[in-house]
């Protein structure tokens, strides 16, 4: 795997731990940055607040974005990422418990690259995490710097 980072936007510490475990179990060794709410996620993307001074030309290979988040929710985060010239092509995968049609439609409308529902069955979750890592870190070619 390459040196690209993964931004995991997740407010639930259990889910965070499970996701990290699942990625580790799939031998995804890349650095995973965790943002626990929408504001932190945006700060990371735009090098503001807690992450001011960060080199924003070095963006994560993929953002794993939960929808239900404190402060600014996932869909709003997605909207702001897409609205900014610097981040409009950023690969974003919605990783959520929700399977509401409405969420899926709005997610895709706002330009999500993928929509993955977190399975309760950990075996399934492992598979999903493995495939996500494989796809977004190795297979997928990110947009060039622009």
């Amino acid at each position, binding site marked *: 795997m390459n040196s690209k980072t993964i931004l995991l936007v997740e407010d639930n510490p259990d889910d965070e731990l499970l996701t990290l475990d699942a990625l580790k179990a799939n031998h995804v060794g890349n650095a995973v940055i965790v943002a626990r709410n929408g504001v932190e996620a945006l700060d990371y993307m735009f090098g503001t607040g807690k992450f001011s001074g960060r080199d924003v030309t070095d963006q994560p290979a993929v953002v794993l974005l939960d929808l239900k988040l404190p402060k600014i929710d996932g869909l709003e985060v997605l909207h702001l990422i897409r609205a900014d010239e610097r981040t409009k092509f950023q690969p974003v995968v919605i990783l959520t418990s929700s399977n*509401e049609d409405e969420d899926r439609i709005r997610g895709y409308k706002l330009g999500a690259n993928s929509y993955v529902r977190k399975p*309760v*069955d950990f075996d399934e979750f492992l598979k999903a995490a493995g495939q996500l890592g494989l796809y977004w870190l190795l297979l997928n070619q990110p947009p060039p710097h622009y």
Partner: protein
Amino acid sequence: MHHGNPFSENFRISRIIVIFTAITCCVLLIIFTRLIRPYELPHKNLIAFLFLAIALSMVGLVLLIARQSAEKDKAHSKKENKDYWNEAHLRALLNAAPDAIFITDGTGTIHIANALAEKWFGYRKDEFVGKKVEMLVPEHLRQAHIEHRNRYNQNPSTRIMASGTELVGIRSDGSEFPMEVSLSPSMFGGELWITASVRDITLRKEMELAKLHAQTRLSELVTNLPVGVFRICDSDLAHFQEVNPAMVTIFAAQSASQLLASSLESLFFDHKDWSTYTARMAQQFHLNSLEFRFRRLNGEDFFGFLTIAANTINGETVYDGILEDITERKQQSERIGTLNKDLERRKTQLEQINQELESFSYSVSHDLRAPLRAMDGFSSTLLTDYQDQLDERGRDRLLRIRSAAQRMATLIDDLLNLSRVSRTEIAWTPANLSELANGIINDLRQANPERKMEVKIQPDMQVKGDVRLLGIALTNLFNNAWKFSGKTSNATIEFGCERQNDQTVYFLRDNGAGFEMEYAGKLFGAFQRLHDIGEFPGSGIGLATVQRIIHKHGGRVWATGEVNKGATFYFTLKS
């Protein structure tokens, strides 16, 4: 034509007689001279001379009479010009008259009748002549007519149509008709002649009657109308001039006269309204459905719509109007208003509840799953990472935790589906059940490649319905069939349709575990299970979801089954 034109008739006859006599004499002379020529008769020449003299004197007489009669004719035609040479004309005039005309003598005997007389009474001319005029009136009126005629004869005068008596005439076929008769007497040759003009007034009578009926109907209409109808006269603007019974009722008056005696001003509840009324009337002379508050004579107030229009009748301006008591309507519209507000409030409430339900479902979907994921996930990591330190029992308990967590996740999903089905508005489109079924079977085969299953799906089952919901229903039914025939060898699933009582019934048949028919009614209740979880897993919500979807499509769903023989699920859809 006996007494008709005696002069001209007599002259003509006498002229003919004289000419005839002269010719006869000449002929006799000729015959006689021929006859006696062969004989030698004494005084033959004298006799011939005599005959000749007679013939000549006859010719002279003829010429004399002819001259006399010509002179007489001339004198007569000078004196009575019209009667004499326009007789045919007179007759034509009689026939062209718009009335039936009879000329009778003083005894009531008909001498002349014109063409309309023939037509209206249905007799030929000669059937009239010589008969009494009483033939033209019905039997029971004849005696009175005779008396009437006799009275008239004592003092005959011209009686024109307008003052004419209306009589009843009888036709030759016995039918009667109303007629109007005018009489004009004339003296001729010392005799009384009466010319009677008779007019058939059936049509006029009918029109008069129709007009009367129309007037009666109109006045009945005004009388019976449930709205107040009134007239105010320009000469007294402070009172009603006429009111219909509804006005009396509306104003709770004892009688029309009591209402007529009340001043209009006193009938307005508010002085403001009275001012408006008078101002509007002064400006425009009409009102169009204006709402006023009135006062009944018993003091009660009521709201009414007032409409007034000005009319001119015989040169006088009158104001005709209608008044409608709208108290009840107002109350009703108030009630409707209250109901509407109530409905609006309930609608808002319902919308609120729905919104809460939505967000509740969302929370359930999202938040309830997270802890389950943690339970399953950490159990799993324990099993993996600490497998050396766990004995069989420990591993078993962790597996049970995982299985319970997953079951609960399924339960939550199923429940969410069920509630989503209830909330979904049906989008009616054409749907192909066969295609849907094939897709579901393909998914099942892919998920369970080890299962051998014979599947028969009738092709091209076209219906109308919500494709997504029908898909959910079929998925549940096929999942059941698939699941409950898991322990059956030669497992077969058949999906098709048949006509039952003029209705298309779709069925899904399996030869799996089946069920006891006595529990058939419980199949479709939420959380109802007829099998042990260990034997056949499931939430018990699938068939409840199926039922809701089918009901939403206006259909019915039912099932038959036999233990270890299989089950058949039937459903119908609104055609």
